[in-house]
């Protein structure tokens, strides 16, 4: 090929490259603007995953662009994504005197309760842009941090109500009532008290002590009045924006009919994974050491003493823009007692849905399916006991004020067992008035 032809070819190649690159540049600017606009619309519509895609596409059109980087960081922060921090820091490093990036870093850390870090960014925004909308927003957040630190460390909830229980004694459907028991259903008054005190509150975590009290008073079946006391120590540690470690130790003492029924020590560590946008997963383990006590009514109760273990996972799923919350859970457990007849392995599935209606009404639905395989037969020569427990409940709560609410509920259990003594049905109808302090 002669030099002339080579030069013409080179010119053609270079010209084509310039043409296509300039076309690409033209498409880039308009395309960039469209991605930015669609990303903004998506953020304002709370559609953060789409917004992240759009701003990422805008960054591909214009790598290193401040606006696209800042908006991407904001969308990630709104969605709860951990990488928002790195993106916002990148935007802030591009324009250190731009207050918006610093404000968003403050908001990101505020939402994770890292108040010291959030305060640093908010103070910086006020320094960079005094008397601006950004500094006013920073002031709002700083005030919220002060309120949070000064917020009361205790809370108390008292509930008073009545219940009708169709099967207080857990009697079988066809079987006669036990001696001394006049009927299996009864009315009862119930009082519950739940208190908690946060004695440690820091950005990295918290620790609290709690006390729960329950007392039932039956109209006729006073031998089945239940008093229960639970004292617990709980703690939370923020490992990272995504992972939280929680742990609880609890001591529980229960009286039935005025006699000691059982006491138990429990340890419950769990790991909470925050996936963002309200989604979270809790992986938990529970160890419980039970000490059942004999009484005139339950003379072999102590045979059930032993160790109980449970592992499980629960997924929290926000629905409909966070006006509803669904939970799905799976658990495996086993109970080791003094008698094989009470030892069992179990599997449990739970589903729950909680949602808010207008007029300050809250609906709570839940269902549980629990299969228990016992290691012994209740009657010599009989089959190994198998229980299938199905539970469903619904409650409706009306908030009367910020302090008071009223709850009506229905709770149904069907314990289907191949051992007739344990086959029963139970329904509890409740009405409670609750006060929160």
């Amino acid at each position, binding site marked *: 090929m002669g030099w002339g032809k080579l030069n013409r070819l080179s010119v053609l190649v270079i010209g084509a490259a310039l043409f296509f690159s300039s*076309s690409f*540049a*033209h498409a880039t*600017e*308009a395309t960039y*603007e*469209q991605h930015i*606009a*669609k990303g*903004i*619309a998506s*953020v*304002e*519509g709370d559609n953060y995953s789409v917004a992240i895609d759009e701003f990422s596409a805008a960054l591909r059109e214009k790598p290193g662009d401040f606006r696209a980087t800042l*908006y991407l960081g904001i969308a990630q922060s*709104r969605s709860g994504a951990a990488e928002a921090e790195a993106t916002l820091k990148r935007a802030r490093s591009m324009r250190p005197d*731009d*207050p*918006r990036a610093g*404000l968003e870093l403050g*908001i990101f850390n*505020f939402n994770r309760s890292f108040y010291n870090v959030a305060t640093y960014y908010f103070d910086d925004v006020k320094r960079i842009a005094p008397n601006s909308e*950004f500094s006013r*927003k920073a002031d709002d*957040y700083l*005030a*919220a941090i002060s309120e949070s630190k000064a917020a009361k460390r205790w809370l108390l909830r008292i509930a008073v*109500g009545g219940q009708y229980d169709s099967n207080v*004694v*857990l*009697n079988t459907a066809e079987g006669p009532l*036990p*001696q001394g*028991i006049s009927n299996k259903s009864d009315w009862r008054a119930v009082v*519950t008290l*739940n208190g908690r005190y946060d004695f440690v509150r820091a950005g990295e975590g918290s620790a609290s002590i709690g006390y*729960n009290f*329950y007392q039932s008073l039956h109209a006729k079946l006073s031998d089945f009045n*239940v008093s*229960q006391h639970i004292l617990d120590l709980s703690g939370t540690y923020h490992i990272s924006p995504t992972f939280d470690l929680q742990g609880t130790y609890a001591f529980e003492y229960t009286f*039935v009919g005025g006699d000691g*029924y059982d006491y138990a020590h429990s340890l419950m560590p769990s790991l909470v994974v925050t996936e963002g946008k309200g989604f979270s997963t809790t992986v938990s383990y529970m160890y419980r050491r039970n000490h059942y006590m004999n009484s005139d009514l*339950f003379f*072999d*109760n102590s045979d*059930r003493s032993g160790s109980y273990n449970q592992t499980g996972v629960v997924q929290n799923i926000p629905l409909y823009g*966070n006006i509803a*919350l669904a939970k799905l859970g799976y658990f495996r457990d086993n109970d080791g007692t003094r008698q094989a007849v009470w030892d069992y392995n179990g599997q449990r599935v739970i589903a729950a849905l909680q949602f*808010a209606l207008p007029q300050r009404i*809250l609906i*709570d639905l839940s269902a549980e399916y629990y299969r228990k395989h016992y290691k012994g037969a209740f009657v010599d020569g009989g089959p190994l006991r198998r229980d299938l427990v199905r539970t469903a409940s619904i*409650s409706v*709560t009306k*908030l009367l004020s910020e302090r008071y*609410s009223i*709850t009506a509920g229905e709770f149904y259990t069907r314990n289907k067992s191949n051992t007739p*003594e344990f086959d029963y049905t139970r329904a509890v109808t*409740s009405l*409670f008035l*609750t006060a929160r302090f």
Partner: protein
Amino acid sequence: MKIVHLTLLVFVACWSAGLSGVAHAKDEVGSLIALRGKAVIERTGTTTAAKVKEGILFNDALATREASRAKVLFIDDSVLSMAENSKVVIKEFLYSREKGGKSIFNLLDGKMKAVVGRTNFEVHTPTAVAAARGTTIYFEEGIKDGKRYTLIICGETDKELVITSPDPKIKDTAVLTTGMMIIIFEGEPFPLPMPAPASEIERLESLTEITDFALSIPGPFAPGTGWLSLELPYAPTIDQPPLNKTTPVTIDLIFK
């Protein structure tokens, strides 16, 4: 015949489905995605304050107030960024994803940056008509020395921006390419387009863009105050063993 009727029915159904993107009078053609300051929407004789996420309808007029800016995203991916004291009317908007369409905006006053989407896009001012596809255009409409004018800058594009006059007496046409601008005064022939100074582009860019305020800033909320954190009355479950079911029998022995 039945097959013909069925085919017609299917065709009409598909055509109707395909027209899902066509904007009719009552459909939204866009939405206000960002607002700094105040803006109003004039619709069927009433004026209401504009809010972010508010839908924009065919024939709406959007006007920004002093020290205010607005950004609108249309269903064909066109974007209009308006500066303060600007007013634009959505005069025509026909669009379908498959066939494209046509959009006409009347810029009555002020400054605006338009990113053209998938329709045949036109902006009409009192002194000029700009028609384009696939480009970014800056507009400034105002009065200088008692005369109404329109300044148009063609941003980056691989297509031409064609300018004509709404005045039937002025037959001039101007064609702008990337980086070219023209200032057209009312009643006067078109001047030759000239390269737009970078300072002019930067001025209009800074007057129309809403960088730091484009995304709303949420306020702080105290955790745990939402309804869904409510705990319902607690009730322990007592899984009691079966009670003693034997019935004692008293036997009276009478010895005679």
